[in-house]
């Protein structure tokens, strides 16, 4: 592989790994806050047991998120030194702000994980608020920096020199509202359906305790509330591309030639050579309607861009469709679940097909996040900063990037396997038999764990 491809592979792998933990780091604290609040309010040991379990899982997930995030903060400089040199003074600020948000999150995580005996139950619960609030802020700040790479703002270039830097304008660049809201909602959707999938499996296996139903119920509430907003938000986001990044929209929809009344092409295999998508389902005029609200509107195709400025739709198009498909699947599952729940007088539905649907929607929601980032990042190529700096010009001159890529990939594999084993072990450990007051303020839930 070339150095550029090695660097992109390492960065991509690192981001794909980290985003799972980052999303859970945003979503899980919210679930913790709600579950612990319900536990204290109703003095309910079921909710408290859920809180305890999720806390243990969160401790593992947060640590891996923290270290994989550290890799990324170094990689920005190690792999893309020209990018950092160019962009630091313009867009470094949200990274610094994210640093503070992450700091607050790490501090209150320490209090939350180890403070069961040292804090009153109420004070302990209050520690979950800074957790989910700073988690959301972290996501917002970091994604605003990514938005800037897509629609750079807050500076001018005069005679090859960057001048007139306005960091606030850079943070609030045109893509920021779309990207940040889409990522935040994605984190809640994926956490909701992801956690729900765990309890759906347990119920499918015949676990009957209310504990499992409570877990399923709360997680499905989070996921099902977030998913309609997410789909609406995704539509806004895609439409914004028509003006902000027409090349990306063309890659997303596989539009090779500029045309009026463009159809939408769902799925299929992109053939770069012929400029066609084979085996796609075509719906006439729909792309023009969706993007511009007019069935005869002109959609700019890749042909409007010089060959060296074109993103490759080969992965971008199917990734986009995969993401949208996963989103609608989650919407469908969430809708059916709550429909059955309320029609059956608030009894958690145990229809096996539905439970299997939930089991599937969990991983699919995370796949959707990955695919969404593939669309954002590959759709921006060949630029690292859209229309300003090419990815190939930003890569480091350090040799041996293949070695570094191989080492980090190996580390990710080991971490992923170990984490999976430990989380499964946690899920299988028997439920504690302790009663309310002990459960609310002791160091341990009592059974089988250190």
């Amino acid at each position, binding site marked *: 592989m070339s150095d550029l491809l090695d660097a992109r592979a390492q960065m991509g792998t690192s981001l794909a790994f980290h985003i799972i933990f980052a999303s859970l780091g945003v979503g899980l604290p919210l679930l913790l806050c709600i579950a612990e609040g319900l536990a204290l309010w109703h003095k309910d040991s079921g909710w408290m047991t859920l809180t305890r379990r999720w806390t243990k899982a969160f401790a593992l997930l947060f*640590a891996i998120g923290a270290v994989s995030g550290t890799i990324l903060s170094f990689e920005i400089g190690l792999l893309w*030194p020209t990018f950092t040199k160019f962009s630091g003074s313009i867009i470094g600020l949200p990274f610094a702000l994210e640093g503070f948000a992450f700091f*607050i999150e790490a501090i209150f995580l320490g209090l939350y994980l180890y403070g069961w005996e040292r804090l009153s139950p109420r004070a302990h619960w209050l520690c979950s608020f800074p957790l989910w609030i700073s988690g959301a802020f972290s996501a917002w700040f970091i994604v605003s920096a990514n938005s800037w790479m897509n629609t750079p703002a807050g500076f001018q270039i005069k005679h090859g020199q960057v001048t007139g830097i306005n960091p606030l304008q850079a943070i609030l660049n045109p893509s920021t509202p779309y990207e940040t809201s889409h990522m935040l909602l994605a984190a809640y959707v994926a956490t909701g359906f992801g956690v729900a999938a765990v309890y759906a499996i347990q119920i499918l296996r015949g676990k009957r305790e209310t504990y499992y139903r409570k877990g399923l119920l709360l997680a499905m509430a989070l996921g099902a509330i977030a998913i309609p907003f997410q789909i609406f938000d995704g539509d806004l986001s895609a439409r914004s591309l028509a003006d902000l990044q027409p090349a990306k929209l063309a890659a997303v929809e596989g539009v090779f030639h500029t045309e009026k009344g463009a159809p939408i092409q769902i799925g299929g295999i992109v053939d770069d050579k012929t400029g066609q998508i084979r085996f796609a389902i075509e719906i006439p005029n729909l792309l023009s309607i969706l993007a511009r609200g007019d069935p005869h509107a002109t959609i700019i195709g890749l042909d409007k861009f010089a060959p060296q400025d074109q993103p490759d739709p080969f992965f971008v198009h199917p990734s986009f469709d995969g993401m949208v498909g996963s989103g609608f699947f989650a919407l469908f599952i969430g809708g059916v679940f709550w429909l059955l729940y309320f029609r059956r007088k608030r009894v958690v539905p145990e229809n096996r097909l539905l439970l299997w649907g939930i089991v599937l929607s969990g991983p699919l929601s995370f796949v959707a996040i990955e695919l969404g980032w593939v669309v954002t990042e590959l759709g921006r190529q060949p630029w690292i900063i859209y229309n300003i700096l090419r990815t190939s010009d930003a890569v480091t001159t*350090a040799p041996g990037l293949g070695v*570094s890529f191989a080492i980090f990939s190996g580390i990710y594999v080991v971490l992923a396997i170990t984490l999976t084993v*430990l989380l499964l072990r946690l899920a299988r450990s028997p439920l504690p038999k302790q009663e309310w007051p002990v459960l609310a303020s002791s160091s341990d839930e009592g059974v089988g764990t250190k």
Partner: protein
Amino acid sequence: MTLTYAILIILWLSLIAYAVLGGADFGGGIWDFFAFGKEAERQRSLIGQALGPVWEANHVWLIFLIVGLFTAFPPAFSILSTALFVPFTLAVIGIVLRGAAFIFRANSEAVTSKVWGRVFSTASTITPFFFGTAAAAVASGQVHVQGGRVQTDLLAGWTTPFALTIGALALSLCAVLAAVNLIIEAQHNNDAELVEAFRRRAMIAGAITLVLDAVAFILSPFQAPLLWHGLLDHALPLAIATALIGLGAATSLFLRRYRLARVLAFTTTALIFASWGLSQFPYLVPVAVTINTAASPPSTLLALLISTSIGMALLLPSLWFLFHVFRGKHPALNVQEKAAEPTSTQH
């Protein structure tokens, strides 16, 4: 100008915070590595107890330092990342394995837990060493830049005898910081044996630090002349103060004044970094980058200063609360003592 220095001082203070707090956590891993005998398990669990609630927060000082450098001095960040690609990559690998292994160890079964414990202690030695060598490469002016491009060879700069000495010095310093901290933790647990064990360890590590200091001192006129002249020229009083306070730390350790020893050891570390910074003034990366040529425009620095002030206003009280809550005796020990009291009165 003033703005640039204000930001620089904040970043340098973050570096010190990371060196002291993060350093003590890495040092914990080093002592985990050297835990042996019948006390070994108790030592390991004391180290785990000390690190558990704070290591993630202590680690964020590094993140803050990186993103701060990225924002305020982008060319310096870019040059350092290129010239020190190898030691930084190795240090990051150490960070990842240390953190992951620490949390894996606490959640695994006995056998795998042992394996992860080994990974934890080994990885804890990687990061301070390579950060130490990288710092030495910078301080000794081994990062060469021409026309904006880094000229330094991948293995140059951080593999000199001076740099390797500083790497080892970073390790022994972390070990000292951890040991003086673990003494206090052991006191909270009423574990007199471990107090003595870590007092011995602190003194051994302190002696090694002293020797490495002397080696670095002898090497520096030849291998880091800029640092040497800077030290003589405008950081000499600070360097002498550092040495005296270090001596004070050793004395109070010997006299079993543990709280004082901890304060003095932490202060010594802070002053070492302050002397380094002062010695290489006005360079950020001697002699390739000066502070003023690397600084971002005032609009960026002002925005960073305002955000940092707001951020610190939220952060510092939270951090104080974290350390406050986990200070002192573990509540479980109080319960045990209460339970033990009736039996002891019967005798």
